[in-house]
């Protein structure tokens, strides 16, 4: 299903101008003393509730900016401040 996504530079654009960079999971854990298990947990394990989540998106067919947006996997729509 397609939807509109808000690019911070270009405004609302159609989904297919963008690439999804996946869930925002905070900074990479420090490499120093990182166990294999902790590395794999960071790299692959996710919690994906059917609720709004912060994500990275790339406006590849537009201005080329990487930005954060909030989208709800239960509705597959962007959650915009103020609706």
């Amino acid at each position, binding site marked *: 299903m397609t939807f509109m996504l808000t690019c911070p530079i270009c405004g609302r654009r159609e989904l297919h101008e963008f690439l999804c960079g996946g869930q925002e999971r905070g900074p990479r854990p420090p490499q120093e003393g990182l166990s294999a298990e902790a590395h794999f947990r960071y790299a*692959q394990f996710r919690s994906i509730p*059917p609720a709004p989540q912060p994500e990275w998106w790339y406006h590849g067919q537009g201005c080329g900016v990487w930005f954060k947006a909030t989208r709800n*996997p239960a509705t*597959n729509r962007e959650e915009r401040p103020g609706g």
Partner: protein
Amino acid sequence: MAMLRDYLRPTRLWAPAPIKPHYQVVIIGGGIHGLATAYFLAKTHGIRDVAVLERHYIGFGGSGRNTAIVRANQRTAASVRLYDEGLKLWPVLVDELDFNLMFFNSGNLNLAHSEAAVAAFRMAIGTANFLGIRSELLDPLQCRELIPALDISDRPEHPIQAGMYHPPGGTLRHDAVVWALAKGAAAHGVHIHQGVEVTGIDTDGGRVTGVQTNRGALQCRQLGIMAGGYGTALCTLIGLELPVHPLTIQAMVTQPLKPFLNHVVSSGAYHVYATQTLKGEIATGAHMDPQVNYTTDPTARYFKHQAEALTDFMPVLKDVKFMRTWAGLADMTPDMAPIMDANVGFDGLYLDVGWGYFGFKAGPIAGKYLAEMIARDQIPEIISPFGLGRFLENRYAGETAGAMKYGHWDS
């Protein structure tokens, strides 16, 4: 006449049962996996105090939305062993459940359009042949002998270089599988509760004790999460993280045509697979939306892709109309192999998730071994390569090197 009337009277395949406050085993998900597990628990292991909870109606999810293709020509031996046993189980189930599952043993033809794809075929064929499963490499002329509608000239965007022909594969009627398993499970005493949504999972001292639902609380000693793509969401109820992305995958059918496509045909380069159903429609699909998503809404954009792809290598389909489209969830793991594990995070919690687009093929056979896992509380050897722990130990299953990788989904 009385006998004829009795024969023609519609009969229920299973009787509704009252919801009990306690069951030995509760299975979340009334699809093929959950129903098969319940069926084998009751039939093979004598555990009849089992409830299957389904949020919508049985077969609402992936079980009723897949394109019902079965095969055993995956990349790794661990997978091929399981899928091969699954393939051999279908005719047994037709007899055992006394239900026509419409198993059409048509064989699968996968097309290669590059040297890399031919190399992947050789590896998959080697694995299959080593395990005694028929799978062979065909040249383009042999491909056209199987499917005369294929354009094997240099005209298409991706000319056909070779085919991987796997005669034991084919298609089934997926709804029939759901209904037959429900009928079989209920006949052995399993309770099937539709319209029951799990809203919470109760634990006590590291053990699963029951579930909260829209119809009240149910206690249980063992809990199976077998809800396909929705399993990822259910696991968040107990804070269990998984290496799984639930993605929407789309399929569509054309108007019915006279029989011309007698095999399942698929192509990784064109990102498409197609079968002709027994009704005559061309059932086709493969596209996955790349962002995680629990909706089942198709995207209009992909009719165009599907039409372009199909008509490029099978030009006879030009001007044929698509009739309807739908979508389901594919819960993708990084190695494209499923996760089946026992006592994950909590004692008494059994996990069956991450089947991606392979869930239908292995439904009953997975149910057979999941039932054994729950009944004996130990992991059967054949499904032991599919534990969750492999992702933490860098022991990925390696299915991503398979010939049938339909796309770029990892985000």
